[in-house]
């Protein structure tokens, strides 16, 4: 709880330090001096900082997150609009990362010090070293431009959105189109999400691979596996039943960290692929010195991270009998 307050405070004050005048932006370029002044009073920017903060927090708790200076809509609504897009991308990226990273990590650990293991490690490090924004651009050049098989940016083709609009159930294009049998939209949405998801997944894949590998190595070394073998349990059972369950818990921790990182990456990826999510939203907000949005997003980001960690903690407690809440 305190953490949230702290974060909001930091972001709040930080944003205001920025050398830009939101009042001017609010009113527009052609405004006259007194209009700007009037706007400033309206927006409450003339009051001392701590008063502004107090007003903000008061409204926040009441459910009013302020109105975006740029879009003129309540921040909450904007967030609600853009959140699903970001979530969909983030989750897609994570799924890719886990499907590649974890199995490879397990294999690398069981073949420690062989060629396979070394290759995996190099692969993991490579994935961790790739600049997210660069790989995004590269993918665009390769698949969109040169090969022309995938779209450059965006979430859905305009033409498809017009002719086969997706019914909004969850806000996730992929799920919604599937649920309503809207195949055309589904394939289109899929085509659009592949490249950004891959770009986003790169770092997380490296992370998952590396951490799964070291976790498995530790687990495989544990004495209770020696005991299991001493009692004649077959190797398969030893590895997959006995070892794996112990590895699950640290792996969940990996997921948590991986997810936080992908929030960062999501930001860059959205900007490059023009993905209509929170990343792009907050990017434009930063450029426009849109205070309420910046602070609002900061809080949301922190909330998401905290929530994810909480879920992971719960999962841990459920699997590992030694962990007590």
């Amino acid at each position, binding site marked *: 709880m305190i953490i949230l307050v702290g974060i909001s405070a930091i972001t709040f004050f930080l944003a205001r330090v920025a050398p830009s005048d939101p009042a001017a932006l609010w009113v527009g370029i052609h405004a006259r001096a007194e209009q700007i002044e009037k706007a400033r009073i309206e927006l409450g920017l003339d009051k001392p900082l701590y008063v502004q903060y107090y007003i903000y927090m008061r409204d926040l708790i009441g459910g009013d997150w302020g109105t975006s200076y740029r879009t003129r809509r309540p921040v909450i609504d904007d967030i609600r609009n853009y959140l699903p897009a970001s979530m969909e991308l983030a989750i897609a990226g994570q799924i890719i990362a886990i499907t590649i990273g974890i199995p490879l990590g397990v294999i690398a650990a069981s073949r420690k010090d062989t060629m396979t293991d070394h290759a995996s490690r190099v692969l993991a490090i490579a994935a961790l070293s790739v600049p997210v924004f660069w790989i995004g651009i590269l993918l665009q050049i390769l698949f969109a431009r040169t090969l022309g098989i995938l779209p450059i940016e965006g979430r859905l083709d305009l033409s498809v959105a017009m002719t086969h609009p997706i019914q909004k159930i969850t806000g996730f294009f992929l799920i919604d189109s599937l649920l309503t049998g809207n195949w055309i939209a589904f394939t289109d949405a899929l085509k659009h999400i592949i490249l950004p998801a891959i770009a986003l997944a790169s770092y997380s894949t490296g992370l998952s691979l590396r951490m799964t590998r070291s976790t498995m190595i530790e687990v495989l070394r544990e004495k209770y596996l020696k005991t299991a073998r*001493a*009692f*004649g349990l077959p190797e398969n059972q030893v590895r997959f039943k006995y070892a794996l*369950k112990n590895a699950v818990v640290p792996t969940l921790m990996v997921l948590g960290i991986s997810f936080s990182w992908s929030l960062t990456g999501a930001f860059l990826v959205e900007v490059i692929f023009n993905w209509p999510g929170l990343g792009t939203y907050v990017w434009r907000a930063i450029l426009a010195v849109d205070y309420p949005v910046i602070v609002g997003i900061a809080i949301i980001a922190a909330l998401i991270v905290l929530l994810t960690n909480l879920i992971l903690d719960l999962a841990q407690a459920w*699997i590992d009998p030694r962990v007590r809440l």
Partner: protein
Amino acid sequence: MSGMSPPLLSVQDLRVDFDTYDGVVKALESVTLEILDGEVFGLVGETGCGKSVTALSIMRLIPENGKIVEGKILFRAEDWLSKTEEEMRKLRGGKISMIFQDPTVSLNPVFTVGQQIIDVIMIHQHVGKEEATTRASEAFKLVALADPDKALKLYPHELSGGMQQRVMIAMALSSNPDMLIADEPTSSVDVTIQAQLLRRLLEIKSARKLAILLITHSMGIVAETCDKVGVMYAGNVVELGPMRDVLKDPLHPYTKGLLEAIPTPRSRGKRLSIVKGTIPDLINRPLGCAFHPRCSYAMEICRAERPAAVNLGSGRRVACHLVKR
């Protein structure tokens, strides 16, 4: 051996090397011993003398960087060194079982003890889960675990050290093996529990005609529980014989030292005697008898030549230049 039935286990001239970063560690130089059916054999020596390695070699569980260079291991006259890994796996926990020193790390923390012993029973006795559960409960009863059915559902960390060790023993004996190897089974529990465990073990042994290879650094334990004793030093069996004979008349200087080091009520108020010095470098073994630097009876020949084991009749054997007959 003088008209008796063939020994259950016969180890002959076993030599084991380990490949390490610092060089090749010659852990076992030449180990020879025999254990008869239903006999309690104590293998005693200080840390690093190779007793655990001997046990692990019998079970074929030595770590990857170790190699059995030469020697024979015969179980019921069958050559075990030529068996495949799969054949050995079936024997482990079935015909021969091993329990280890620290039960807390030997049991898998994320499964109940019941699940673990049931797994072992199912593998070796080829029965279904229900039948296995019944047998598991019986095994727990055998080791005098209070409330066996309830114990099945507990996790290792919910049991005390003594109870955990009982679980291990139950697992080891569940499929009625011919021999049990116990590697320092009581070193991690306190003295009272230690006495209880050993007593229980001996009771079981008598009831089932179970041979036990008891590995320990405590001469005191061996003196109280074993029929036969083998004293190991730096990878060799330096003295071997029936417990009473060796106790009464120890021939090897090391054996003498070990016996003298046992504190008795008589030693109260006096300085405890010790065997001075430390074990030799196992990578660059010195010439001659490995014990000679610490031996108060060392002669010229001890420095130059390694003493061969000499059979003295009625089951006694010594490897020392002092004894030549």
